[in-house]
């Protein structure tokens, strides 16, 4: 099909003419000439040809070393940023922003793009003045400096962190147009830190120690209740993310890591852990982070993040721009219960499904990257992804969730997302029958 374009008899003027009017482009498509190939042919003959035109960077010297002692992305990546939805919250200090999932690949979220959620702004903590206290039902209440903490045996783990309210705006129907906004309250980084059980062992747990209450050093004094079984199983006190110190907005100098459980519990700027024999029922586990059902009853201690997936490309912020032909669909899947076993993709709104290809590491309670390559014939698509984890949990449809939970539960919306891709390649957040 593209051969026809490359033949000399197809004049440049004819191509320009067809590119000038959208309608003509459609006619060209009908004869087998796509927009993308037309643009490629144009490129060959214009002054903007990137091969025959010398670029500045081909000739002159660039910046030397140390121009950026701490490196930053290319200026051409300036759209790759966290974004917020200002109408969601009362003030930016007690608010949230979103990871640009549609701009990323692989499973690791760069530190500067990890979504932020603060309850009283970012605490700028001086690590030399920071202490971690363990008190309550312990043999000996202890205080650790940062230096003390780094003398425990260290461990490295890649985990996702998802806010329980991720996709919470979508309970009543398609609302925000972009996976950054519908699914961007998630990140996945490599944590370096020490096991919480080792720290607790230093203080010595009393036999009636059943619950922990971690507390932050910020002006919200964030506190939650955690059952001791989870704390001893896999929780970490982390001081590094992706190899470097935690960012201030992620809890510098230390945060709690609670694999697979809702992000609110991963207390940032961690300064104290009290050991007790019953839960505290703090504000963030009673008035918030409880799931209200239709009958007026509310689920509490809904810690685990259910298996979920999202197609990040194409999506409303990342349309298909190449016209019809070979297309790479990609996205993310995860489960708070372990590894993701399988991701299914549908192009036709759930009539038929095919297995996607999971590529890269498949790690416990970490993001999984999937791809699905296909020939797009230019017809509209209704895209969905469905993840299944190693426990056999199947990501439900949004309607299946509404059937059991109603639409007022705010949290834990892991329903299947639908993107409608039109003939131009533009995508929209929709719901389907």
């Amino acid at each position, binding site marked *: 099909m593209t051969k026809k374009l490359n033949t000399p008899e197809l004049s440049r003027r004819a191509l320009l003419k067809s590119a000038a009017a959208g309608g003509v482009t459609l006619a060209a498509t009908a004869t087998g000439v796509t927009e993308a190939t037309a643009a490629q042919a144009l490129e060959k003959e214009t002054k903007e040809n990137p091969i025959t035109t010398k670029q500045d960077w081909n000739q002159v010297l660039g910046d030397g070393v140390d121009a950026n002692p701490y490196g930053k992305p290319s200026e051409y990546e300036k759209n790759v940023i966290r974004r917020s939805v200002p*109408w969601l919250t009362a003030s930016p200090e007690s608010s949230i922003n979103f990871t640009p999932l549609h701009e990323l690949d692989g499973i690791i979220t760069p530190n500067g793009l990890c979504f932020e959620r603060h309850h*009283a702004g970012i605490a700028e903590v001086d690590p030399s003045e920071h202490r971690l206290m363990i008190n309550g039902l312990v043999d000996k209440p202890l205080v650790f400096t940062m230096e003390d903490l780094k003398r425990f045996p260290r461990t490295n783990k890649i985990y996702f962190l998802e806010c329980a309210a991720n996709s919470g705006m979508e309970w009543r129907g398609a609302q925000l147009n972009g996976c950054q906004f519908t699914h961007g309250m998630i990140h996945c980084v490599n944590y370096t830190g020490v096991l919480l059980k080792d720290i607790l062992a230093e203080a010595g747990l009393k036999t009636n120690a059943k619950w922990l209450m971690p507390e932050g050093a910020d002006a919200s004094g964030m506190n939650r209740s955690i059952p001791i079984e989870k704390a001893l199983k896999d929780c970490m006190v982390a001081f590094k993310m992706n190899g470097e110190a935690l960012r201030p907005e992620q809890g510098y100098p230390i945060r709690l890591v609670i694999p697979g459980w809702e992000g609110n519990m991963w207390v940032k700027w961690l300064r104290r852990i009290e050991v007790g024999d019953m839960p*505290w029922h*703090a504000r963030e586990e009673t008035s918030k982070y409880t799931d209200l059902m239709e009958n007026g009853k509310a689920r509490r201690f809904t810690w685990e993040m*259910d298996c979920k997936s999202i197609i990040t490309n194409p999506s409303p912020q990342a349309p298909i721009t190449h016209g019809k032909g070979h297309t790479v669909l990609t996205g993310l899947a995860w489960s708070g219960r372990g590894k993701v076993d399988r991701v*299914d993709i549908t192009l036709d709104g759930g*009539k038929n499904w095919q297995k996607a290809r999971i590529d890269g590491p498949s790690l416990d309670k970490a993001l999984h990257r999937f791809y699905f390559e296909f020939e797009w014939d230019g017809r509209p698509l209704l895209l969905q992804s469905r993840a299944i984890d190693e426990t056999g949990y*199947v990501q439900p449809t949004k309607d299946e969730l509404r059937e059991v939970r109603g639409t007022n539960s705010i949290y834990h919306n892991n329903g299947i997302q639908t993107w409608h891709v039109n003939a131009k390649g533009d995508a929209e957040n929709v719901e389907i029958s």
Partner: protein
Amino acid sequence: MSKFPKILSIIFCSLLCATPVLASKLNLGREATKAEIKAWDIDVRPDGQGLPEGKGTVEKGEQVFSEQCAACHGDFGEGVDRWPVLAGGLGTIKGDDPVKTVGSYWPYASTVFDYIYRAMPFGNAQSLSPDEVYAVTAYILHLNEIVKEDFELSKKNFTSIKMPNEKNFFADPRPDTPTMKKKKPCMENCKKKVKITKRARVINVTPDQNKNSTSKE
């Protein structure tokens, strides 16, 4: 020595030595002093553990509230702009538009005390005295018709306060949708017709952003 035990010990070690096992304490950190614990240990539980000495009346609470809290929460806890509504909402929790307030939703009064004591006023946390926190808590409980106008809340009578919505909280029953064991997901000819029922563009509440995404798949 035969090779066999050596291999066994390697297997044994590869099982046990994969993660560092702490045989004994590392003697890291130092003992926290009583003064240090007192300075930080401010949490309060539903059973009253952690309540400081003190007391405060609804009347005193109204005064503190109007000075320290009303700018965001409104004089009667009705909430200004998008700041939290603290009072009212009784009977709305089952409805289409639930208004979750201290009175309509919160299961324990201790949570009100604990949260105010640690996090309020917003931007000037931990500036209220225990007596002021008892008073403000009493006032909020009064706004929600849980205590009378002449009530004085104290460490002594705190656990006598029962919240109307406590009984409506229950344990997490998930998973609550079909798993592979119950129902394998359909792969072919799963439905005949598909229609778009809801569209985000109609709602049109997504923030404006630069359209030129750098992403090209």
